[in-house]
């Protein structure tokens, strides 16, 4: 792949999703949260620590031939609540999606505490996490009230 081609892929995609305004250094976490890794077949471009007027520095991810679902947006809200998400069709922005990190995150991830009642996956009620504070992000399980570590939560995506 030529360097020129690679640059074009970063600057414009034909169809897919662009996630912009990701906090600097968080792009890999975003990919992990979205389950987009080395094994996924879609092309992914990633730019980290680029200058941003608004944020100082930011990360950008472009995922080709894949449009994020609402569930994926809910997961994204946990790691990049202020990111901008655009759906690209035929090289144009077809849709701008809104990320909404409310006071509660339901059935997106499950509690990381090993003795929480929700570790029995046969229990049918939704997995609920309360957003205690948004900045810095502070999350607790609705049931056991244990604080949740984001790096651990990523492993518990539903």
């Amino acid at each position, binding site marked *: 792949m030529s360097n020129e081609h690679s640059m074009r892929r970063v600057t414009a995609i034909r169809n897919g999703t662009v996630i912009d305004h990701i906090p600097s250094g968080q792009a890999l976490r975003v990919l992990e949260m979205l389950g987009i890794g080395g094994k996924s077949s879609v092309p992914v471009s990633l730019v980290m620590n680029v200058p941003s007027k608004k944020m100082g520095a930011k990360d950008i991810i472009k995922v080709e031939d894949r449009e994020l679902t609402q569930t994926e947006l809910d997961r994204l809200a946990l790691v990049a609540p202020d990111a901008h998400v655009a759906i690209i069709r035929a090289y144009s922005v077809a849709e701008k999606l809104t990320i909404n990190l409310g006071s509660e995150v339901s059935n997106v991830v499950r509690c990381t505490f090993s003795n*929480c*009642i929700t570790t029995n996956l046969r*229990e049918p*009620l939704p997995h609920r996490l309360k957003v205690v504070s948004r900045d810095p992000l502070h999350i607790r399980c609705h049931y056991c*009230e*244990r604080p949740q570590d984001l790096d651990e939560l990523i492993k518990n995506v539903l």
Partner: protein
Amino acid sequence: MAGLITMDDLTNEQIINILDDATRLLPVAKGELYLPLLQGRILGNLFFEPSTRTRMSFETAMKRLGGEVVNLGDVKNSSVVKGETLFDTIQMVDGYTDIIAMRHPRQGAAQYAQDSARVPIMNGGDGAGHHPTQTMLDLFTIRQAHGTLEGLKVVLAGDLRYGRTVHSLSHALTRFGCELIFASPKLLMMPEEIVSDLREHGANVTETDDLLGSINDADVVYMTRIQKERFADDDEYARCAGAYKLHADHLGDVKSEMIIMHPLPRVDEIHASVDSTRHACYFNQAFNGVVARMALICYLLGVTVPADVESEGGAF
């Protein structure tokens, strides 16, 4: 209908109202008066792990007020061993009863049960989580002895790390402006996040490993059991636990109205010589589990405790 999962479910005013109700219900709890306020109501006792005092006092509380009790019984003989979810168990008991008392080894189980049920759930302990009905009876006992909950000096001693009782009680006492002294071996100190949370809520907290040096100006000394299995070896246990044993000889210079409490069972952290002193309050505290739970059940079921229990109640 809302139950009691953590002490945060009650305002200070609601706590005081329930304690007032409990005070009026004392002759009923003692069996001196018959007052069937809960006649026709059924309590479901769901204890998924062993309990003596909590289960029995819930049952006694219900029966003293003319109500009935159904028990889950031994978990080993229930549907739970067949793999029934907590949700399904609650659906069933919810249909059989008007209120549920529950203890479960998993943290968050009480909230989960409340979200699954229509009837109120009373949390009788969920893993290392909360035990608010114990806190209610502790508050009742303290107020009974001192006439107030405000501004007391309370020493909490022993295993402060793992004891859910002392965690809930510390938060509640902070809400009433008490000064807290945490006396424990280094290994069993109050978890840092709880201490900082208490301080954020305005608590005046002192941490020490010197129990005997802390009791002379205390209004309450709340002892807890130090468990052997928390320590790496027997010698370390013996060295640490030895400093957290109260004997009548230690009480010579304490305030005359100071009370010694313990959630029980005790092993040897309170010597039998203390039992006959005026400070021993732990058996009365265990009895208060009945009256505090009577008032709580009435509150959660919306049953008014009469202002004049004596004239409403009948003799046996």
